[in-house]
């Protein structure tokens, strides 16, 4: 760690991992509710568990991005963070808001929560992923603005690298597109149309800039490849991401009341969306093959390579599977979508945050370069357990989805939703089992932080 102020990232990383645990626990609850319908009912109904599962994910990824930025930006800018105190204060505000929101989901009836938080004044609640009370959303905006100010000032006073500029652009985009969360007209079609400006333009747009910048940073560090080469790759990857991804938004406008031409536009551009992810895979492997140094942090390199492969599989391949309009007509809103969502989020965004944590945390904790080999081996075990179990979760959900599409949508005698759900229960059981293995992987990941030993060096 070159600058003292980079250490504020630690708080963010710890909170991110804690929320990650909460996310997985509630995922397991939901997975069980798929097969034991009355599990925890009516105390934690499915919709509440799902809010915790998805909202915890979003918040911990945001925490991870912020932590990554607080670590990365000063090092790239070659200067101390503008205000470490502001970063710490915003952390506690963010954590308190997130904690209070999750507690409210679990303790208060949702309709009551909407009422007591004044949802009537500016109704924004009750929409997928945007379930947070309006005051929480305002809190998120305040925290993100303070965060952008802090890293923006740091970049302004220091060296302006391409990585910093791309990261900043991604984070500003994140803030700008989130503002569509406050637009919720009575007309459902308009509501859905602009809802995607938050959801799609985040995960298939500006978040890819954040992902690319973090990956480029870590690859420079662990491979020692020339910055010019890495930044050229970065620009090409994010160029393809936005060239395909912006009009790729159209793949959400097939069946929500929007004009039919979106079926053509959405199909063409979203079919291109795997390209930037494939380039990312080539990029990561090429850079590691051309490495000019042997970095002792093998675990971080593994996560960096892993995220490039899993993002391509989850976002690229599993996205393409159901993105063409004639296919999507039958798969839209089935377990196929769930399969894609799980692997894409894990591969692209969970793994990039862990890549950054894996690289930065040993340095923040005072190591010269890396954790002990013993600790790294355990961490790499957790990599394989979580990654392989996520592949199985995705395959089981895909199996469930194919059967669901066949029985409920495609065959000559379509059957009712709940009838079909019972017929495919075996796949849900298998998914739950894979989920348990994922949890074991996550526990092992956390254990790896507590394994001491002599620091790994390069022979």
């Amino acid at each position, binding site marked *: 760690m070159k600058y003292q102020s980079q250490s504020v990232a630690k708080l963010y990383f710890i909170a991110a991992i804690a929320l990650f645990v909460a996310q997985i626990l509630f995922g397991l609850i*939901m997975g069980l*509710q798929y097969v034991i*319908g*009355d599990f925890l*009912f*009516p105390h934690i*109904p*499915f*919709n*509440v568990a*799902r809010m915790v599962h998805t909202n915890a994910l979003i918040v911990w990824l945001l925490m991870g991005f912020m932590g990554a930025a607080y670590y990365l930006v000063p090092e790239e800018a070659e200067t101390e963070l503008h205000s470490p105190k502001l970063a710490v204060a915003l952390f506690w505000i963010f954590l308190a808001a997130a904690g209070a929101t999750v507690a409210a989901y679990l303790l208060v009836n949702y*309709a009551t929560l*909407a*009422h007591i938080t004044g949802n009537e004044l500016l*109704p924004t609640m*009750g*929409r*997928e992923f945007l*379930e947070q009370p309006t005051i929480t959303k305002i809190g998120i905006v305040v925290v993100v603005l303070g965060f952008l100010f802090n890293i923006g000032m740091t970049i302004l006073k220091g060296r302006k690298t*391409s990585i910093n500029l791309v990261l900043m652009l991604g984070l500003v985009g994140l803030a700008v597109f989130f503002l569509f969360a406050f637009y*919720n007209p*009575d*007309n*459902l*079609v*308009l509501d*859905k*149309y602009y809802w995607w400006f938050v959801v799609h333009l985040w995960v298939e747009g500006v978040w890819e800039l954040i992902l690319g910048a973090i990956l480029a940073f870590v690859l420079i560090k662990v491979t020692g490849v020339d910055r010019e*080469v890495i930044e*050229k*790759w970065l*620009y*090409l990857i*994010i*160029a393809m991401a*936005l*060239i395909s991804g*912006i*009009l790729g938004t159209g793949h959400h406008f*097939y*069946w*929500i*009341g*929007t*004009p039919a031409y*979106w*079926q053509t*536009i959405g199909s063409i551009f979203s079919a291109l969306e795997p390209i930037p992810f494939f380039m990312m895979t080539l990029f990561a492997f090429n850079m590691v093959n051309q490495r000019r140094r042997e970095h002792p942090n093998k675990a971080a390199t593994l996560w960096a390579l892993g995220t490039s492969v899993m993002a391509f599989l989850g976002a690229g391949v599993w996205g393409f599977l159901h993105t063409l309009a004639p296919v999507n007509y*039958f798969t*839209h*809103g*089935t*377990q196929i*979508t769930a399969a894609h969502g799980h692997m894409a989020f894990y591969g692209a965004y969970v793994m990039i945050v862990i890549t950054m944590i894996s690289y930065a945390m040993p340095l923040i904790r005072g190591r010269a370069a890396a954790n002990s080999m013993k600790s790294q081996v355990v961490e790499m075990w957790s990599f394989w357990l979580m990654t392989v179990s996520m592949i199985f979760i995705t395959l089981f959900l895909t199996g469930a989805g194919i059967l669901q599409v066949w029985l409920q*949508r495609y065959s000559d005698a*379509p*059957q*009712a*939703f709940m009838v079909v*759900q019972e017929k495919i229960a075996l796949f849900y059981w298998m998914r739950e089992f894979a989920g348990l293995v994922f949890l074991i992987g996550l526990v092992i990941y956390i254990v790896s932080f507590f394994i001491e030993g002599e620091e790994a060096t390069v022979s």
Partner: protein
Amino acid sequence: MSGAFTKSTARNIFYGGSVFFLLMLIALTFDTMGTLPERDHRENITEQVAMGKKVWEDNNCIGCHTLMGEGAYFAPELANVYDRFGKSKEAIMGFIMSRPAEGVPGRRSMPQFNLSQEELEAVAEFLKWVSEIDDENWPPNIQG
């Protein structure tokens, strides 16, 4: 990745491409906004329909159901529930009202939301309006 193809070329492709396609999205959005009134039948969005959407949101219905294929995949699609229930608002209201508070042993069951008569009518009216949106004949069949 060598020779004349430099980092600044790559950067220009990024900025040029992004701005161009962002402008395309804005242009297509304007066009879509112009064509939507004929497809969403917004003239039928009464105060009751608007209230129904509010009831839908305040009870987080999207946390289990899909609506036009978006939402959670735990419970049936509802954009065509009005048609599936024989074009009967009463059937929709009756179903919502009849959910047992303690659930059904071993099975998925919708929570009892204790909606008022006014709220029940509004949410049924909202679902009726949704069923009439021109959504390119989705879902493929009545089962959703």
